[in-house]
């Protein structure tokens, strides 16, 4: 009797469930795409709207098919999968389009002359961005030299020492600084140096100061997060060896967080390297190579791009070509910085792998 009951129950319970074959799914996807792209134009829709039609069709047809065959849970899963994929493509599309456009127009002047000459005496064809590349690297480098110590030390204070009023007000100030419009940073730097050197002051260091105003909060924030990730056990292990707090921070906490800190700093650099507005105000623009941060105007790639596009010269094609090439150069520099950050994270990471 009991065995009978048992087998009856067992025969009812099945672990299998019907599912749409992958081939069927692909057929549905292809069908929706074809229908959208064929019917769309017939309805007088343009290409974009036809794609939208195809996606909407897919959003309806595939979940309905899944609902019939596979049940409600799998149908919901398919619906959400489509929605998420569409959202992802929408987010990625502008980026790819931007990259493609910059490469397409910028590659034309991606020649040795562009990298090894400046704009002195150039009105039409030729010319290069050497002075702007040097200016960008110098000013961003100087900004990093200013911001990294200040940022790292502020973060160390906030994570390791800061308690109460002072720490929370610094945190609020850092948050506010994150939101400063870049033009305000430029105006700040200009106003500051104008007090000492008069209103006609234009020089690279001013640009670096403006950039560091933008960079410091980013560095503080990212380093803060990295320091918080260092397990407390390591600090305690160090204290228990009779190591002072400062030495614990310098020799245990900071090295453990080094990979993340390096990545954070690189991203902060990447964040400010494309700034135009503050440099327009305080660093000005020039056509010559200027190696001196402390004197005279200094060009930068974003400013160079801006002027090459707004005042392209006669005939305008050459200026516009140079603008695209400069934008592409900036792209490449930022990309290289990002790769560097990943590489450094991996290099430090191998020593710290836990």
């Amino acid at each position: 009797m009991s065995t009978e009951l048992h087998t009856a129950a067992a025969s009812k319970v099945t672990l299998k469930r019907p599912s749409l074959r992958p081939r069927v799914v692909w057929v549905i996807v292809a069908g929706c795409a074809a229908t959208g792209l064929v019917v769309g134009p017939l309805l007088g829709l343009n290409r974009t709207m036809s794609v939208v039609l195809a996606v909407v069709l897919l959003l309806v047809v595939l979940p309905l098919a899944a609902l019939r065959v596979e049940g409600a849970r799998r149908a919901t899963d398919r619906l959400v999968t489509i929605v998420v994929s569409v959202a992802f493509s929408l987010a990625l599309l502008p980026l790819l389009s931007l990259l493609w456009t910059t490469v397409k127009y910028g590659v034309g002047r991606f020649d040795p002359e562009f990298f090894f000459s400046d704009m002195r005496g150039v009105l039409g064809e030729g010319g290069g961005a050497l002075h702007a590349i040097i200016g960008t690297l110098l000013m961003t480098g100087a900004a990093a030299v200013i911001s990294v110590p200040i940022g790292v030390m502020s973060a160390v204070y906030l994570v390791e020492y800061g308690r109460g009023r002072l720490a929370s007000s610094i945190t609020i100030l850092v948050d506010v600084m994150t939101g400063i419009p870049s033009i305000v940073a430029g105006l700040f730097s200009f106003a500051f140096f104008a007090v000492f050197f008069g209103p006609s002051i234009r020089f690279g260091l001013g640009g670096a100061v403006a950039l560091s105003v933008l960079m410091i909060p980013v560095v503080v924030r990212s380093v803060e997060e990295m320091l918080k990730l260092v397990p407390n056990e390591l600090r305690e292990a160090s204290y228990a060896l009779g190591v002072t707090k400062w030495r614990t921070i310098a020799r245990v906490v900071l090295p453990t967080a080094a990979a993340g800190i390096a990545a954070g700093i690189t991203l902060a650099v990447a964040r400010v390297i494309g700034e135009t507005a503050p440099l327009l105000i305080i660093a000005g623009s020039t056509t010559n190579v200027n190696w001196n941060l402390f004197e005279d105007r200094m060009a930068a790639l974003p400013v160079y791009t801006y002027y090459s596009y707004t005042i392209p010269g006669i005939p305008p094609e050459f200026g516009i070509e140079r603008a695209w090439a400069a934008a592409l150069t900036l792209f490449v520099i930022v990309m290289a910085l990002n790769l560097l950050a990943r590489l450094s994270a991996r290099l430090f990471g191998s020593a710290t792998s836990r």
Partner: protein
Amino acid sequence: MVSTVAKNIDISDLDIYYGDFLAVEDVTMYIAPFSVTALIGPSGCGKSTFIRSLNRMHEVIPGARVEGKVVMDGQDLYGADVDPVNVRRQIGMVFQRPNPFPTMSIYENVAAGVRLNAKRMKKVELDELVERSLRAANLWNEVKDRLDRPGSGLSGGQQQRLCIARAIAVEPQVLLMDEPCSALDPISTLAIEDLIAELKANYTIIIVTHNMQQAARVSDETGFFNIAGVGEPGRLIEMDRTEVMFSNPKDKATEGYITGRFG
């Protein structure tokens, strides 16, 4: 072996606070030199808090403070002019979870106490110290060929012995162990217990453990902590020679805990 002079510790009327919360109340205890003292008791009764207050690690937590006296060989550890950093150099600590420094090699981990304190030491002397400490921790034979590899590459039991080597490389006089075997398998646990028996010759050892057999195996004295209820402070209920505690405890609660009837 590392040459040290073990010290006695005399604790009287010790109250331990987290902010306004009294976590451990009124502990009075004498710990003899060259002895192993086991502290047992249910979770949350303040054993770890108590042991951390013995090398002034408790105050690392914001708001944490201590009232009462902890006297080591005539010196009050909580005296006005006492530097907690110096206290910790005398009283080493091994934690529940092995925590070797991830950025350092095995060698550097053992040398960390010397290097991080910026003590000047000749390479030869340092090599010697590292070898001595690793031998004392019964780890030398397992790692002597890979001293430059990261300490995090070792097994859990080896890592814990590395942490013990690191602690004794500072040449402390007292060694505190906060559940040193709770994250380890039985074989590693046995290795650590053997090690404790050897270290007893040179150090005064205080060990917190949840493992009753372990307390019975390794310790000379056993202290039982208990807590009256949630939010109540932990107290030292009873302390005696380990044989007495496990065969003939005076307190009902101790007997109940040891025989496994609660906790």
